[in-house]
C-alpha cells in the first residue's frame, strides 16, 4: 500500500528502499556494473527497448480486439531480459502469462508468443525447440515443473539449469512453497525468480504477506535468498548469473526476489485507479529500468544517439512484424481440437472430430453408429 512520507514522496512498502537495501538515485544503477560487461549490458538494453516496444504493441492490439487479453510487463524489462540473458540456450525457462517479453527475448517468434493471447491456441511455440515452457497461467504451478526438469537433467547427466519465473502473488500459493522445499531437499539445479511488482492484481504486497522481503522465504528452505533492485538490469543479471552458475555447479537452488513495479494495469481490462494512486505509478516511472540503463551506457560511451536510433529502428521493425503477423495470421484449424488430446484419438474423439467436420462442411447428418 502506498503511503506519503513527510517529504511528500510516495513510498510503496514493497519498494527497494526497505531497511538494509540500497537504492541509488535514478540513472545510477546499484553498484554491480563491474559484474556485467558493457557489451552484455548493451545487448540487454537493446532487448529491453525491443521488449517494451513489443509490449506496447501487444497492449494496442489487445485494445483493438486482436488479442483477447494482454498482461503487460511494462516497467519490468530489467527482469524480463536480465533473467533470459543469464541463461544458455540449453537451459529451460518456465514463464508466466506476464512474461511474454522474456519469451521473445528467448528468441521465440513474437506471433507464436502471443498465440495464447490472440486466442488461436493455448500455446503457439514449440517448447522443446526453444526450451521455453508454455506461458503458465495457474499461479506457481510451473515451479515444480522446473524442479522436475532440473532433476531430470541432472539424472541424465546434463548440466542444464531450469529457471522458474513468478510474481509476488504466486508466492502465496502452496505450489511455490512445495517447489522450493523439494528443490532444496533434492538440491535441484533450479533458480526461482520472483518479480515482485507490488500487486497481485489489485491486492498490494503488504496485504499478501507480513514479510518485508520475499527473499526471506529462502531461509526456511535453507537455500540462498537474494533481494535485488528489479529495475536495475545489472543487478538482476548479475544475481541471476550467480544463481545459475551455482545451480550448474551442483550447489543447489536459489530464490531471487527482484523488486519492480507493474506500471500497467493487470491486463487491458483492469482498472487500477480503483486500488492505487497515480502518484505511486509516477514515482516508479521515475525509476524506469530502461532509462536507468541508458544513463549507465551513455556514461560509459557505448550508447549514443546513433546507436539509440538503430535500436529504436529495430524495435519499430519488431513491432511492425508483430502487428503484421497478428493481423495476417491464418484462422485456427478446428481439427486441432481433437488431434492432440491423446497420442491416438479415442474412438469417441474420432467420431466427434468427424461430426464437427461434417457440421463445418454444412452436412450435419447424424452418423451411422
Amino acid at each position, binding site marked *: 500500500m502506498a503511503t506519503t512520507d513527510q517529504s511528500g514522496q510516495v513510498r510503496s512498502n514493497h519498494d527497494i528502499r526497505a531497511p538494509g537495501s540500497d537504492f541509488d538515485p535514478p540513472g545510477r544503477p546499484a553498484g554491480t556494473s563491474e559484474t556485467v560487461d558493457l557489451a552484455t549490458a548493451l545487448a540487454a538494453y537493446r532487448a529491453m527497448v525491443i521488449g517494451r516496444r513489443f509490449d506496447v504493441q501487444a497492449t494496442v492490439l489487445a485494445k483493438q480486439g486482436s488479442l483477447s487479453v494482454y498482461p503487460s510487463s511494462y516497467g519490468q524489462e530489467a527482469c524480463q531480459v536480465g533473467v533470459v540473458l543469464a541463461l544458455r540456450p540449453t537451459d*529451460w525457462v518456465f514463464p508466466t502469462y506476464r512474461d511474454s517479453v522474456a519469451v521473445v527475448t528467448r528468441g521465440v517468434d513474437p506471433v507464436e508468443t502471443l498465440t495464447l493471447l490472440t486466442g488461436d*491456441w*493455448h*500455446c503457439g511455440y*514449440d*517448447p*522443446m*525447440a526453444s526450451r521455453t*515452457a*508454455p506461458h503458465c497461467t*495457474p499461479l506457481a*504451478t510451473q*515451479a*515444480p*515443473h*522446473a*524442479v*522436475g*526438469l*532440473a*532433476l*531430470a*537433467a541432472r*539424472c*541424465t547427466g546434463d548440466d*542444464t539449469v*531450469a529457471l522458474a519465473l513468478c510474481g509476488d502473488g504466486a508466492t502465496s500459493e*502452496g*505450489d511455490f512453497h*512445495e*517447489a522450493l*522445499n*523439494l528443490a532444496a*531437499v*533434492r538440491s535441484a539445479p533450479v533458480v526461482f525468480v520472483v518479480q515482485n511488482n507490488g500487486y497481485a492484481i489489485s491486492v498490494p504486497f503488504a496485504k499478501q504477506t507480513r514479510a518485508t522481503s520475499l527473499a526471506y522465504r529462502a531461509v526456511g528452505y535453507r537455500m540462498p535468498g537474494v533481494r535485488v533492485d528489479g529495475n536495475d538490469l545489472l543487478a538482476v543479471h548479475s544475481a541471476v548469473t550467480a544463481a545459475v552458475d551455482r545451480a550448474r555447479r551442483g550447489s543447489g537452488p536459489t530464490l531471487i526476489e527482484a523488486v519492480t513495479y507493474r506500471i500497467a494495469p493487470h491486463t487491458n481490462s483492469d482498472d487500477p485507479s480503483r486500488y492505487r494512486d497515480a502518484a505511486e505509478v509516477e514515482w516508479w516511472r521515475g525509476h524506469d529500468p530502461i532509462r536507468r540503463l541508458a544513463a549507465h551506457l551513455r556514461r560509459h560511451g557505448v550508447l549514443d544517439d546513433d546507436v539509440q536510433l538503430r535500436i529504436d529502428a529495430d524495435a519499430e521493425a519488431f513491432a511492425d512484424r508483430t502487428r503484421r503477423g497478428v493481423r495476417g495470421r491464418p484462422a485456427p484449424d478446428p481439427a*486441432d481440437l481433437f*488431434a*492432440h*488430446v*491423446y*497420442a*491416438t484419438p*479415442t*474412438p*469417441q474423439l474420432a467420431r466427434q472430430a468427424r461430426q464437427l467436420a461434417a457440421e463445418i462442411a454444412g452436412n450435419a447428418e447424424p452418423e451411422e*453408429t
Partner: protein
Amino acid sequence: MTAPAQPDPTGTIGIAPGMTLAKALNRALHDEMSHDERVVVFGEDVGRLGGVFRVTDGLAARFGDQRCFDTPVAESAILGMAIGMALYGLRPVVEMQFDAFAYPAFEQLASHLAKMRNRTRGAVSLPVVVRVPYGGGVGGVEHHSDSSEAYAAHTPGLHVLTPGTVEDAYGMLRAAVRGADPVVFFEPKRLYWSVADRALPAEVAPVGRAVIRRAGTHATLVAYGPTVPIALAAAELGTAEGYDLEVIDLRSLVPFDEQTVHESVRRTGRAIVVHEASGFAGFGAEVVARICEECFHHLEAPVRRVTGFDIPYPPPRLERFHLPSVDRVLDAVSSLWRDQ
C-alpha cells in the same frame, strides 16, 4: 508363496502363481525400470519403506536413489515434478499414498498433466503414471477409502485404468508406463492381497480394451477394479437362481471400450453397472447413458446401477452397508425381470 522366477536376460521377472496383486504391481515396476532406464519412481515413503502397501518394495535398493526416491509430503509438487521430468524425457511413475490424499495434486493433474499435449499441439508428451490406491473395504478411517476415478475420467487428456485381477495389475501397469499419454492408474486397495490362482504370462496388456470375464446370455454385469470379484461372485451365485450372467471387466475407463460393452448388451438385452463410487454423476452414469444411446432397441429392461450411496465415504464400522454387495447385485438382477 512360490519362489520368484529367475530374471530373464532383460531383467524382467514377471509374475508367478500365488503372487499378490500388490506384488504383481511391484514386479511390473521392477520390470519396467529394468526395461527402460528413463523410468523413475518417487512419492511418499516409496523408498526405504517400499510404500505403505509395499508396491515399491526393493526398488530403491535395486535401482538407486536417482531412480526411486522418497519425497516430502507434497502431492502437488510430486506430480508437478513428474511433469517437469517428463518434459525432459523421463517416464515418471508417482505414487499418491491414498485416494483422498491425491486431491492436493488435482490442479497439476487437471490443468497441466491432462492438457500439455493439447496445449502444445502435440509438441510435448507427458508419459507420466499416477498410481492411486483407491476404494474401500479395508477398514480405513476417513480419507482412506475414496473412489475418485470419475474426477480423472471426466478430465480429457488422461487415460484412466484400473485392474481387477493380479494378471491385469502386472500387464496394465507395464503398459501404462510404456504409453505415450499420462495415465491415472487406480489400484483397488482391497484387492492388493488377492492372489493369482494360476500360472500367469508376463505380458504387457493392451490399453483401452475391456474383457469379458465370464460369458452369459441373460444380462451383462459391467464392473471394474474392486467390483470385478463382486460381479463374478454374483454371477456364480446367480446360476443357482437360474441366471446366466455375463461379466465385463472394463479395465480401462478412458479410453472406454464401448464396443465390447455394446456388443454384450445387444446380445443379453439387459445390463447392470456395478461400482463402489457414489452413483450420482459417477462413471456408471456414463456407461448407462452410452448403453441407452447405442443399444436402446436391444434393451429388454431399464439399465440399472449398483453403486455406493450418494454419501461421503462411511466410517469403517458402517462401510459394509455402503459397498455394493453380491446380494445387492443379485437383487438388481432379479429386478430386471420384475415387471414381466
